[in-house]
């Protein structure tokens, strides 16, 4: 959820670029809605976004078969982190011409590595927007 919360912090900048963000969840629509709207893991809280309905700003998309993930080469359908993981977390940036210009797999190597991950996505979006 940290990647999504960090993306939410950069919302204004992404909107200024005229860009759009999507998050694909390899689950049924019910759990995708939970992912987007219910903040199941980060509900409540007293922080900056504690009262917001969702910290997931990107448009959430449900991919229950994992077909989209397989096309993008991120499918895993494997056990890890104490559960079944359908997709390896991965960022992609597509420019205004429809060309894939950036991809990165977050490492989760440090407790704050998501900050750099999202900064790099933002850099790629800036380049993609010609700014």
């Amino acid at each position: 959820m940290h990647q999504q919360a960090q993306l939410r912090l950069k919302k204004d900048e992404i909107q200024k670029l005229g860009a759009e963000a999507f998050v694909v969840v390899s689950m049924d629509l019910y759990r995708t809605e939970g992912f987007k709207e219910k903040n199941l893991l980060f509900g409540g809280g007293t922080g900056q976004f504690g009262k917001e309905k969702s910290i997931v700003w990107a448009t959430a998309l449900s991919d229950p078969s994992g077909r989209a993930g397989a096309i993008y080469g991120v499918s895993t359908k494997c056990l890890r982190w104490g559960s079944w993981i359908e997709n390896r977390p991965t960022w992609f940036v597509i420019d205004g011409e429809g060309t894939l210009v950036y991809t990165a797999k977050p490492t989760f190597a440090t407790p704050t590595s998501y900050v750099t991950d999202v900064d790099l996505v933002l850099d790629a979006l800036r380049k993609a927007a010609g700014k």
Partner: protein
Amino acid sequence: MKRRTIGLIAVTGVLTGLLGILPAVSARPSHSALERYRNLELKPVFENFDKGWQERVELEFEMVNHPNLPELRQGLKDTDPYVRSISAKVLGFLADRESIELLAEMAAKDPEYHVRIRAIEALGFLKAKPEVIAAGKSDPDFGVKWTAKTVEGMVADRVDHAAQARASFAKGIRRKDMDSAVVGKRAPDFTARRLDGTLFRLSEVRGKKPIAIYFAAFDG
């Protein structure tokens, strides 16, 4: 002489026929998708997180799109926990009501946490046994607890999530289309479902504006 010639022609004809059939027979997989899943060289375990996924994807699509229900139901009782897991998952997508009792038993008692996760998910797709799903929230394993918490509401939800999942599988997947996103090339199209239930197609927005896509694991 005449009889020998006729015999020779008959034998040649039979052999030619057999040779014609043989390639067709050998091209068909000799074992079911579930059996091939059992014999996966790269099992769905931690060490193979980035390896062998293409085959796991293919087999799951095959099991959902061309189901062998008796075999999958038998798979729930298999000694191999990975066979039990995948059988539970697929039977959930197929909304197989004959499996409900066994899935409920597995959700509560299977010794492997990953099988209990799949059984609880399957009950969510089946909209069955809410009391078993609720009990999963007290499971000693965090993954089982989390799954029970996230699928609990599926039982009362009006959407047929199993039918939506089958529709997603029905598009099929070919090996040549997997892993086809390459930097510098046109981003491959895909479809997924928006929260309002409508279908999203990347090609609707691709080429019109810069786009960021994040493929999330279970918690983002």
